[in-house]
């Protein structure tokens, strides 16, 4: 306990108590052996600390991925640490986190917790929601980020919002420094880098939601 500074603990407690509506559950998948996954414990610790600050509104369940492969597959968790946030009905809407949510991505975690708790109500404008809902083909978005990257949270958030809007869209936050092979596969050396459909398309930088949407359409029209 005690990853967060005292002031931050109070701020998080207040934010959760003011902002959360329904309870949520975080399902975390970690490795069997600690040495295989440097950030698994950090992730477990921070989400448990946040849960403690939520006065019961957030519960966490941790699974060893190697022993629960079917469950991990059900939720789209491919790597460890990997976690999803379920609403009161058990829905996660294909929003996945691969990597520890620290640095600026801690803010992303808080935002998503609040939004899932409030019925997945995203701040995307109506006009764009309508357009995103019309996407019929499967789309996989991987947003590569690092904890010190300040432009990264908007990229992750927009990707996650799109996934929440349309069940054909799956969105992943990928913490690049924890997954060097995956990052190298897509040539990630600057963040945020958004990879669409395993490299069919993508872009680097924080695009506003409308432009992000256009990039997805470009890939689907190829």
């Amino acid at each position, binding site marked *: 306990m005690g*990853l*967060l500074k005292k002031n*931050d603990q109070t*701020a*998080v407690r207040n*934010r959760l108590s003011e*902002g959360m509506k329904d309870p949520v559950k975080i399902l975390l998948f970690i490795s069997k052996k600690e040495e295989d996954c440097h950030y698994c414990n*950090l992730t477990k610790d*921070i989400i448990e600390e946040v849960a403690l600050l939520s006065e019961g509104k957030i519960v966490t369940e941790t699974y060893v991925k190697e022993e629960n492969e079917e469950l991990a597959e059900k939720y789209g968790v491919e790597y460890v640490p990997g976690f999803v946030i379920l609403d009161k009905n058990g829905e996660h809407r294909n929003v996945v986190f691969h990597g520890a949510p*620290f*640095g*600026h991505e*801690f*803010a*992303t975690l*808080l*935002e998503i917790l*609040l939004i899932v708790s409030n019925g997945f109500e995203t*701040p*995307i*404008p*109506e*006009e*764009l929601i309508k357009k995103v809902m019309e996407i019929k083909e499967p789309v996989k978005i991987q947003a590569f980020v*690092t*904890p*010190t*990257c*300040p*432009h*990264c*949270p*908007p990229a992750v958030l927009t990707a996650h919002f799109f996934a929440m809007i349309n069940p054909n869209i799956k969105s992943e936050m990928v913490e*690049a*420094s924890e997954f060097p092979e995956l990052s190298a596969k897509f*040539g990630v*050396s*600057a*963040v945020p*880098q958004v990879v669409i459909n395993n490299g069919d398309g993508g872009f*680097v*930088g*924080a695009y*506003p*939601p*409308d*432009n992000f949407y256009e990039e997805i359409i470009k890939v689907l029209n190829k």
Partner: protein
Amino acid sequence: MVFFDLGSTLEPTKNKELEESYDVIIIGGGPAGMTAGVYAARGGLKTLIIEKASEGGQIVLTEEVENYPGFLKITGGDLAQRFAKQAEHFGCDITMGEVRNVELCCDNKFVILDSGKKIKTNVIIVATGASHKKLGVPGEKELANRGVSYCAICDGAFFRDKHVSVIGGGNSAIEEAIYLSQMASKVTVIHRRDKLRADKIIQDRAFDNPRIEFKWDTVVKEIKGENKVQSLTVQNVKTGVQEEMSVDGVFIYIGLQPQTVLFENLLRLTSDGFIKVNKDTLETSVPGVFAAGDVIEKEIRQIINAAADGAIASSMAIKKYF
């Protein structure tokens, strides 16, 4: 280096449905834009701030700010959030989006967003700021995001225990070199002169840093590598001698270029593209269009005077037009 940023609450006003018209539209959400917003809103104007990437503009890309009055030390991100919260607090609408076009004639001006949305306004304040100047050498574009970077805090993590070079001699270059020295095994600062432009206090910190070395009187001629940066061809400007330098990354901090492509045929600009304004009112060559911050023609570009510009532009707009 593990830290936890709480971020700002996603206020309902952000990305909410935009109105059809405003009294003033501020293009750019950095210190100039946000301060202009505070002054405009407090002056009773219906205000919209449009930001394309992240609130705070350039300051978000810097770890530490030590010279903004009132704060001994604050992160760029923190300061940016405070600016944004204040603008929201006084009632500014803030939206994320990119401006595709503007119609500047006459009393009713229009701002057209990338999404196609067209918004009417009486006054426009251009606070689009500046972005990092490019070196303009072969390999720079080809290897962008493959070892060529203009943002140390964004991309530094990819160069842990590696050798990186920083190009430039001003505050940004040296501050970022110091930041990178925490991760890289070696940082070579390449500067075309034999002394730095940076503040003395920053220079001393760099000179005392065992991981930072300096290559004076040197410019980069080419950035090379297959799929990622592997070496630089550099040249000594005094002797003309060229040599190959092995590096894993190159961080370029050689100055700023204004973000004014949109205004090229609409406003009077300097030959470098900065917006020409009346020194007292900050009004541009088009009545009802003001400009503030790094984007205008000026000698010194700092957060403090960007914010000051924002305040002046809004105040003068109110005085003249409302």
